[in-house]
């Protein structure tokens, strides 16, 4: 489970010139730049680390001059480019079960077909696998599979699950101890670079600045109309901070630009940018739980903006870090701060905690209801979502709906079925509103 974007979406009204906002151009350049570094890593003498989005220790990897390769992001990018289906089939032909995570199979399929990345250039074999085992069981097996293939050093960071709804000192100490005694020595060994904690502090300081602006952007959806879509647009907004850029001045600059653009949208009372231009009228405000489908991302999004539905908050944009509840990376407590970051990632929180968050979002963002996009591949998100639905409905009195799709397996996206369900859901919201106004009269 993870997140982040392909290239940013341009406002693209059919008869109007395509205008890209500065933040979009910035992000596109950043992502292209990281793929460029990856493709040229060998010739540039750079070492490559593969890791995950939840529990992503980008600042630490940067301390060792390692290029960050995120297999989840490659799978997403391949999904958005309609390439993932054949990669999944390739992995299944080699004995990987149809029942398991399609990110894993898309990644393995890519490796089996020569490791040509989403941008058409080769992705080098990793020099180290940083198995940040955070909030997803599949991660452990995924990197065992990659270790078998690449035969490279693999270091595990076990992040305990917040089963009781809180991080404990024991959990934090365990993570810090692993960082000190296992992860950092392994990264030093592979990179040949000695660890410098002041360098880490500097990166964390930069992270906190970007986090501040990211939270501001996400919370801007409390406005009416919301100037952003916090799910379909949100996956772009979290791109830099969830991937290879957290802790870089580029990320700070990206969020500064983005915030400026949103300020302007609020002043002009504009709705979110969509692939077909600005959303004109906001009819429904939703909170969405679960990752999006990537293979039909645009079609999926269109089903919302065509109906005037805007997502004002989503849980998926918290999968690589929960910042809107107050956490910031702390340069004064660098390793402890990394531990707290990992512990707090959305899918590392227990189900009651996740429900509390959703309830809070519905109330804080004045949403009309909850929509769950349940993903076949992702038990970490999906197991228990039907109880989440019931519980949120019970607590908020707002209607909730349930649709099903998959991350990057196009076989599990049924457009007609999803559209039908969404239309029924929007009608249900209307009826609830009608009921309320009738009661008021």
């Amino acid at each position, binding site marked *: 489970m993870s997140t982040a974007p392909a290239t940013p979406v341009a406002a693209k009204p059919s008869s109007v010139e395509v205008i890209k906002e500065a933040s979009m151009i910035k992000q596109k350049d950043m992502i292209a730049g990281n793929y460029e570094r990856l493709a040229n890593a060998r010739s540039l003498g750079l070492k490559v680390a593969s890791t995950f989005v939840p529990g992503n220790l980008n600042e630490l990897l940067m301390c060792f001059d390692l290029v960050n390769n995120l297999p989840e992001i490659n799978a997403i990018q391949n999904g958005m480019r309609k390439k993932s289906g054949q990669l999944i089939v390739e992995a299944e032909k080699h004995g990987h079960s149809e029942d*398991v995570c399609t990110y894993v199979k898309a990644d393995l399929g890519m490796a089996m077909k020569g490791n040509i990345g989403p941008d058409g250039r080769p992705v080098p074999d990793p020099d180290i696998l940083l198995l940040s085992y955070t909030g997803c069981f599949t991660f452990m097996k995924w990197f065992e599979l990659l270790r078998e293939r690449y035969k490279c050093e693999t270091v595990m960071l*076990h992040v305990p*699950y917040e*089963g009781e709804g809180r991080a404990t000192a024991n959990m934090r100490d365990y993570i810090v101890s692993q960082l000190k005694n296992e992860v950092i020595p392994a990264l030093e060994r592979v990179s040949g670079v000695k660890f410098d904690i002041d360098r880490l502090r500097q990166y964390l300081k930069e992270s906190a600045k970007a986090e501040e602006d990211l939270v501001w952007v996400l919370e801007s959806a409390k406005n009416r109309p919301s100037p952003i879509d916090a799910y379909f647009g949100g996956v772009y907004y979290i791109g830099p901070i969830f991937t290879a850029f957290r802790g870089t001045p580029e990320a700070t600059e990206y969020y500064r630009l983005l915030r400026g653009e949103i300020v302007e949208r609020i002043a002009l009372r504009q709705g979110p940018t969509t692939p077909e231009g600005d959303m004109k009228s906001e009819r429904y405000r939703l909170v969405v739980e679960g990752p999006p489908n990537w293979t039909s991302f645009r079609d999926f999004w269109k089903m919302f903006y065509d109906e005037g539905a805007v997502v004002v908050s989503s849980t998926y944009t918290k999968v690589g870090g929960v910042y809107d509840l107050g956490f910031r990376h702390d340069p004064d407590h660098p390793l402890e701060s990394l531990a707290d970051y990992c512990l707090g990632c959305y899918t590392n929180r227990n*189900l009651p905690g996740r429900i509390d968050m959703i309830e809070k979002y519905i109330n804080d963002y004045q949403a009309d209801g909850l929509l769950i996009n349940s993903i076949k591949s992702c038990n970490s998100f*999906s*197991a228990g979502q039907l109880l989440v639905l019931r519980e949120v409905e019970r607590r908020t009195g707002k209607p909730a709906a349930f649709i099903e799709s998959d991350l990057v397996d196009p076989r599990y996206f049924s457009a007609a079925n999803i559209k039908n369900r969404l239309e029924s859901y929007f009608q249900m919201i209307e009826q609830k509103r009608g009921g309320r106004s009738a009661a008021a009269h």
Partner: protein
Amino acid sequence: MARVSEIVDYCTRIVEDLNFGHAREWKAGKSGRKVVGFMPFYVPRELIHAAGALPIGILGGGDQMEVIHGDAYYQSYICRIPRSTVELGVTKRLDFVDGMLFPSICDVIRNLSGMWKIMFPNVMSRYVDVPQNFRDDIGGKFYAAELNELRKDLGTLCGQAVSDDALRASIAAYNENRRLVREVYAFRAAEPWKAPSPEVYMLMRAGQLMAVEEHSRLLSDYMEAARREDRPRRDNTRVLVTGAFCEQPPLNLIKSIELAGCYIVDDDFMLVNRWEKSDIPAEGDPIRNLVQAYLHNSQSTSAKYEPDQARKGKYLVEAVRRSRAEGVIFMAPSFCDPALLDRPMLQRVLDEHNILYIAFKYAENSGQMTPIREQAGTFADSIKLWSEA
């Protein structure tokens, strides 16, 4: 002196009672007694026992229970055990259970721990995390603190602190039980016609639902009775079954494999019964001893990280050698992440060692056994006919 059939019938009655009558009777036997349920694959049962409670394994509803409510909580692409477990809870079949422990086996069981907190707020529900780092000073330190936390919670539940002496006595009781479990497994591996797997399965499964002392007596009785019985030896193929460590196969599936011409000589059905490979020291610091056993003397399984690539899957090869299995059946529940993600890696290790295998999936309520019997029968025949051995 009990006969094998009497022991097995007794066990079967206990296992097939979906109201958990045997455990209920234990609880009713003395005022204030508590029962703590746990899910696969492992929890330190000694802690529950030392607190004075009865640990019982909750392994789903099997093929005899109609799941009505449970399906409303799970999508079609999620395995069966959580939905039948929810069914057990919602239908009040677990209303005598005071605590539930959910070990870190996969994301489905992990999330079920949170669901249980919401659905059954009066039950002490806890997620039990185990270390995936196996260094004494890192994973060991973490696990010791986690065990002490659990020990405190169980003490609160049972109304008395769990003393070191009580814990040492519980370790000794479980050592005795594990020794007998190992004995039964070794006996079956040596003379599988004398200990058919459906019988051994019931014997082990019933052990999840009774006091450890009673189970140890049953195991002893079974060994005595099974040794005495004269049973025909068939020309079956010796197979090891793996991947069934959580959601359990229906008994008919186990029977079908043996009817198809196989002797199951090793399996991972009830991993918790023999999680520790040898005795845990019953002297000294009991928490430290439990931690050491987990880190350095416990079984390998798909839910556990293997830090050393060179050791990956070797446990399976060693089990094949130890049990003199002629082939391996990968038998995983549908949608089981640990077993299905691990399977290609384990199969490659078997390939390297020229060990034959087949694979299929099941659900706890699978009803159609013909395809499985045909697959297992073909596998057994092919080994008999074509194997170099």
